[in-house]
C-alpha cells in the first residue's frame, strides 16, 4: 500500500478497456469518486463514440493530490509505457491493452477477467476459430509487472451484479491505490441501485486480488479420456462393454460414446452394428501394424463412424425435441418453477425432408421426378412454428419421432448408408498404401454436418476434399495435407479457402 501523504511527482494512471455495454463508464466514475473522496484530483476521459455499440472502448483516468492548493495538469490520454494500472473487462481486451503498449513490465498492474466474449470474427467461421488465451498469457508474462486474473464475469453473476463490481474489488484488493477499502465501499454505497449485490461482487474481487488463473485458460476444456466404466448398469449393455474392451485403449472413450450414440439414435441392434463395423476396421488397422501408429485409424473411426451412423435426420430432431430431459432443462434455465412454460420450435421442412421419410424404393422414384418434388415442395415448404409444450405441437413431433421404428427402411437411411460405405471403403482401400491418409479420410467426415442447404454444402466440401485423395496417395505427408484441406474447408462458408488449398495440392 502507498503512503498517501508522501508527495508524489507523477499522477497515478489507469486505463480501462471494456466493450460497449459492459459498464466501463460506471467503473471509471467509481474510481474517480474514490480518489475525490480522498481529497485527490482525478480526471477521466473516454472516447465512446459509436464504439459504445458493442465495440472496444478505452477509458482513461489520472489522479494526483493538489499541491499548495494547485490542481495538477492531467493528460487526456495514456502514454504507452506510462500506465500504472490496466483494467480489462474481458480477456482479449487485456490482449488489446498489451498490443497498444499500455502495459510495461516496470510498472503495470494488469487486472483482467479471464472470461471470453467472442468477437464476430471468431464465431462466424464454419469451424473452430476461437482466439488462443495462452497467447495473452505469454504476452502478459513479459509485458506486466503483476497480473490479477480470474473469471470476474462469473464472480459478478454469482453475486447478482455486473463485472464492474469485482473489477473494482480487485483494484482495491491489489493495494494499487492509496485509499482504504472503506472508501471504495462507500462510493458503491452512494450509487443507490443494486448496492448489496455490487458490494458482494466487490468483496469477491477484493478477496481474489492475489489470483492469477490466466495460465490455466484454454479455448475449451481438455477432452475427457475416460477409462471404460466397470458396468453400464445392465447385463445387456455390459456384454457390449466387454466388446469395447477388446478394442485398443486409445479408442475406448470415444467408442463408448459412439456406442451410446448409436443405441440412443436407434436401438441396441444398431449399437451392435456400430460395434461390428468398428471391430472390422480395427482388424484392418491391426493388419497394418496400427499399434505403432497408436491405432489412430481405429480411434478416428470410432468417432466419425458414430457420427455417420447417427446422422442428423428429421426423426432424430423430433425425438430430441420431445424428450423429458429437454423439457426439464429448459424449465430450469428459464427458472419456470410451477409457471406455465411454452416452447416454440422454428422448423422449415422442404420436399427433400418429407421425401426422405418415404420408404426407400418409393422415395427414390419420387425424388427422381422433378415434377413430383416441386408439387410436394409447394405443399410443405414453409416455416412452421411448432409449439412443443402444447398437446397439438407435441403430438406432431411425437408422431414424427415414432417413425424411428421404420427408419432403416426409409430413403434417408439408404442414402446415408451408401455414403457411409463409399467413405469407409475408400479409407480401407487406402489404409495399406498410406496409413495416415486413411486416417485423415475418416476425419474428413467432420465436414458433413447441418441440415438442408448447410448439409448440402458440407457434402460438397467433403466431395471436394475427397477428390484430392488420388493426388495424395503416394505422399508420406498425404495425411497432413488432407488435414490442411479439412481445416481450409472450415474457414469459410463458400469454400474459397478450400479451393485455394486444393490448387496448392494439385501443384504439389
Amino acid at each position: 500500500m502507498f503512503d498517501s501523504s508522501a508527495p508524489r511527482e507523477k499522477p497515478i494512471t489507469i486505463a480501462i478497456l471494456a466493450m460497449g455495454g459492459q459498464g466501463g463508464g460506471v467503473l471509471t466514475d467509481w474510481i474517480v469518486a474514490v480518489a475525490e473522496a480522498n481529497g485527490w484530483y482525478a480526471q477521466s476521459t473516454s472516447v465512446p463514440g459509436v464504439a459504445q455499440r458493442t465495440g472496444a472502448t478505452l477509458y482513461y483516468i489520472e489522479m494526483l493530490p493538489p499541491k499548495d492548493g494547485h490542481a495538477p495538469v492531467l493528460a487526456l490520454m495514456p502514454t504507452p509505457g506510462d500506465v500504472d494500472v490496466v483494467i480489462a473487462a474481458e480477456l482479449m481486451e487485456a490482449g488489446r491493452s498489451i498490443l497498444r503498449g499500455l502495459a510495461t513490465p516496470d510498472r503495470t498492474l494488469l487486472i483482467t477477467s479471464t472470461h471470453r466474449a467472442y468477437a464476430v470474427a471468431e464465431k462466424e467461421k464454419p469451424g473452430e476459430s476461437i482466439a488462443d488465451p495462452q497467447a495473452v498469457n505469454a504476452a502478459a508474462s513479459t509485458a506486466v509487472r503483476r497480473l490479477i486474473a480470474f473469471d470476474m464475469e462469473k464472480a459478478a453473476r454469482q453475486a447478482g451484479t455486473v463485472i464492474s463490481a469485482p473489477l473494482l474489488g480487485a483494484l482495491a484488493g491489489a493495494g494499487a491505490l492509496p485509499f482504504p477499502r472503506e472508501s471504495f465501499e462507500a462510493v458503491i454505497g452512494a450509487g443507490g441501485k443494486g448496492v448489496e449485490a455490487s458490494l458482494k461482487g466487490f468483496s469477491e474481487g477484493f478477496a481474489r486480488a492475489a489470483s492469477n488463473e490466466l495460465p490455466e485458460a484454454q479455448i475449451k476444456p481438455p477432452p475427457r479420456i475416460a477409462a471404460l466404466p466397470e458396468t453400464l448398469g445392465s447385463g445387456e449393455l455390459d456384454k457390449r462393454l466387454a466388446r469395447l474392451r477388446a478394442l485398443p485403449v486409445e479408442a475406448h472413450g470415444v467408442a463408448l460414446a459412439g456406442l451410446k450414440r448409436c443405441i440412443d439414435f436407434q436401438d441396441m441392434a444398431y449399437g451392435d452394428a456400430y460395434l461390428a463395423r468398428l471391430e472390422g476396421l480395427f482388424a484392418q488397422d491391426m493388419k497394418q501394424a496400427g499399434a505403432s501408429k497408436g491405432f489412430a485409424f481405429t480411434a478416428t473411426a470410432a468417432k466419425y463412424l458414430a457420427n455417420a451412423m447417427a446422422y442428423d435426420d428429421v426423426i432424430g430432431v423430433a425425438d430430441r425435441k420431445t424428450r423429458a430431459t429437454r423439457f426439464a432443462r429448459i424449465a430450469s434455465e428459464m427458472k419456470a418453477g410451477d409457471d406455465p412454460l411454452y416452447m416454440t420450435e422454428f422448423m422449415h421442412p422442404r420436399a427433400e425432408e418429407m421425401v426422405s421419410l418415404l420408404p426407400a424404393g418409393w422415395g427414390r422414384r419420387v425424388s427422381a421426378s422433378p415434377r413430383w418434388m416441386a408439387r410436394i415442395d409447394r405443399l410443405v415448404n414453409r416455416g412452421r412454428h411448432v409449439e412443443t409444450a402444447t398437446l397439438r405441437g407435441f403430438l406432431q413431433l411425437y408422431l414424427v419421432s415414432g417413425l424411428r421404428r421404420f427408419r432403416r427402411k426409409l430413403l434417408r437411411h439408404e442414402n446415408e448408408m451408401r455414403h457411409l460405405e463409399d467413405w469407409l471403403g475408400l479409407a480401407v482401400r487406402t489404409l495399406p498404401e498410406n496409413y495416415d491418409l486413411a486416417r485423415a479420410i475418416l476425419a474428413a467426415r467432420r465436414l458433413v454436418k447441418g441440415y438442408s442447404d448447410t448439409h448440402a454444402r458440407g457434402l460438397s466440401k467433403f466431395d471436394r476434399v475427397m477428390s484430392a485423395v488420388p493426388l495424395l496417395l503416394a505422399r508420406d505427408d498425404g495425411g497432413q495435407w488432407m488435414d490442411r484441406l479439412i481445416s481450409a474447408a472450415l474457414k469459410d462458408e463458400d469454400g474459397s479457402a478450400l479451393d485455394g488449398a486444393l490448387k496448392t495440392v494439385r501443384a504439389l
Partner: protein
Amino acid sequence: MAERSFAREVEDLRLGEGQEFRGEGILAITKALLQSGVSYVGGYQGSPISHLMDVLADASDYMAELGVHFESSASEATAAAMLSASVMYPIRGAVTWKSTAGTNVASDALSNLSSGGVNGGAVIIIGEDYGEGSSIMQERSHAFAMKSQIWLMDPRPDLPTMVHTVEKAFELSEASNTPVMVEVRIRGCHVHGRFTAKDNRKPSYTLKQALENPVRDVNRIVLPPASFIHEKMKIEKRWPAAVNFVKEQKLNEFFGPETGEVGIICQGGMYNGVIRALQQLGLSDAYGSTRVPLYVLNVTYPLVDDEINTFCAGKTAVVVVEEGQPEFIEQALNTMLRRRDLNTRVSGKDVFPMAGEYTATVMQKGLLGFFEKHAPRLLGNRPPLPDASPVLNSKEVQALASVVPPRPPGFCTGCPERPIFAAMKLVEKELGPHHVSADIGCHLFSILPPFNIGATTMGYCLGPAAASASNVKAEKRVISVMGDGGFWHNGLNSSVGNAVFNKHDGVMLIVDNYYSSATGGQDILSSRAENTKRATNNSIVDAVKGVGAKWVRQIDRTYDVVKMRDTLREALTTDEPGPKIIVASSECMLNKQRRVKPMMDKAEKVGEPVLRQRFGVDEDICTGDHACIRLSGCPSLSVKHLDDPLRDDPVASIDNSCVACGNCGDVADAAVLCPSFYRADVLRNPSGWERFKSRVRRAVISFLQRSREKRRIMFDRAAA
C-alpha cells in the same frame, strides 16, 4: 426520450454562485451557456456533443423557468440559421453540432451569418470529432473559421477554462459583431473535472421583446452592394475589434519563464498533452510549472500579431503544436514573422506529423525532436522516456497481434436492423450481389462482418442521393439505405424527392427505428412516443407519398425476415417505374428495453401476468456450422464448446442477455438453416385457468414421454 436519463445532470445545471460543479466537459459547457444569459439554444445531436442536447431536452421545465428557448434542430443548417435571431437583436444564442460533418451541412447559413454580422452574441459549440473514437472523415473546422471570418476558440481542456471561454465567446462575438466557434475535442467533451459555478442569468433581452419590436436593416442582408461592404467590414472593423478584445481580456495564456531560448505555441486543446510531454522530458512538473515559455492559444483564429511577435522576439526558435492539417497556424506565423522581419525559426510540422492525432507518443517525439534541433542543452541529462517499444517488439507480443480479434462496433442485442440486413443477405444469395449505397447511422454497421453490405457513404441522408447516377437500364438495380434520422435531416428532399423527380429506378430502404438512435436515441418527427413538447408520430410513408413516391411498402415488424426478404425481392424485380421505397420499422431495442423493462418488472411484482421470453439453442441438434451467426452477429448469440468426445466444432449458444427479439428463429426459418432454435416463454403470475391448462398439458406430455422411455434405452447427448 434519449437512451439514458439526464435527471441528475439537470440538477447540476441549477448550481449557483460558489457551488462546485463536478462532471463532464460538455455539461460544464452547457452550464456555461446558462451562466452567460443565453436566450436560445439549438443544435443537431451527434458524438461528442450529444449530451449538451440531451441534458437541455431533459431540463425543459428549468429552461422555461429561465426563459431560454431550446430546440432540437432538424439539421445543422437549421441550427446555424437559428442564430439569425442574434443578427438584429441583442440576444445571445448558441448552437452545437459535431464537426466537421455538421459544419459542412451548416456552412451556407454560417457564411450568410458571418457576412452580415451579428448584434447579440452568437456562439457555436463545435464537437471536433477528430482522432481516436471519431466516426467521420478527418478534417479541421479551422478552415471554416478562416474562410468565413468566424472566430475560433480552442480552450484548454480543463473545466474552469472551458467555462470561462464560453462566457467570453459571447462577449467576443458582441465586441466584434462576429459569430464565434468554440471547438472542443472528443476527450475534452468527455473529460471529468470540476469548476466553481456562478448563478445562471436570465436573458437581458428576450425573444418576446424582439418579436414585439421588430427591427430591420437592409445593410445586414447578403445582397449587393451590402455584401461587398460586409467583406470590407470583416477586415477593417470586426477583425481588429476581435484582436483587441482577445488581447485585452487576455484570452490567450502565457506560462513558464518570461524569456527563453526557445518557446512553444500550442492550441489550447493541446495544452495538457504538451505539459505531460514536457514533464516526461524533465522540463515541467505535474502542476504545469514549465521551464520552457509556453504561449497557449485559447483563441486560434484570429491570431494576435502583437502577442506572437512579443513571444517570438528574442527566441531562436518556436514550435507550433497544432493538430491536423493543413498547418494553418504555422503558415500564418511564418507570414507574420516575415512581415516584421523577425528571424525566429518556426518549427512545427517538421518535427510533428502532418496528419493524425497528437497522441502522447507523438507529442513526446515531436517536442523531443524540436529541442534536439534547437535547444539540446535544455534536455540536460535526459531522463529515460516512457517507452513500450521493447514490450511491443518482444516475440510474445508480436505473436499476440495475430490472435486478438478486431472488435468493431456492431448492432446491439435485439437490434431491429439486424433482420433487415439478414434479409438482404438472403436476397443476395438468390439474386446475386447488388451495388449498395449506404448512409450514416447505426445501419452503417452493415458494412462490417458478418453482413459485409454497403459500398459507399457520401454523407448523412445522402445514401439514396449517392445512388442517383445509377439510374440506367441494367440487369440489377441499385439498393440504397437511409435511416429515419437521415430521412428527416434532409433525406426527404435530397434523396427521396430527387429520386421521384428524376424517375429513379432503384430500391430505397428507409430504416425506421423510432429515434435518432446512433446519437443516443433522441426523438425525431416520426418517433412513436407521445412527446408533449414535440410533434411526433409523423409517418415517413405519408411523407414519401407526399412527394410523389408510388411504390411504397411499409414493414411494421422488421423481425419478420421472410416478409422483409420477399419485399426486397419484389422491389428488385418489379416492373413498376420510379423509386421502390421500403420503410422498415421496429423500435430501437436499446430504447425499447429502457422503456419496457421497468414496466415489466413492476407488473410482475404487483402480480400481473407477464410473459418472459428468451431464445435458446438445442445444443444436441446444432451441428456447429455457425450459418446462423453469419446472418446475425448478435452479441447474445455466441458459440460454446461441448463436453462431447464425438464433437469437433463449438455449437451456437444464446446467453442471458437475449431479449427474445425473434431474429434467430425467423432467420433459421427464412434461410432454412436448422431446427436448433427455440423460444421459451414463461408466464409469470398466470391466471387459474392458464395454470390448469398447463397442468393438464404437462400431465399428458409427461405420460407420453415416460411410456416411450420405458420401451428404449436413451442416453442424454450432453452427458455422453
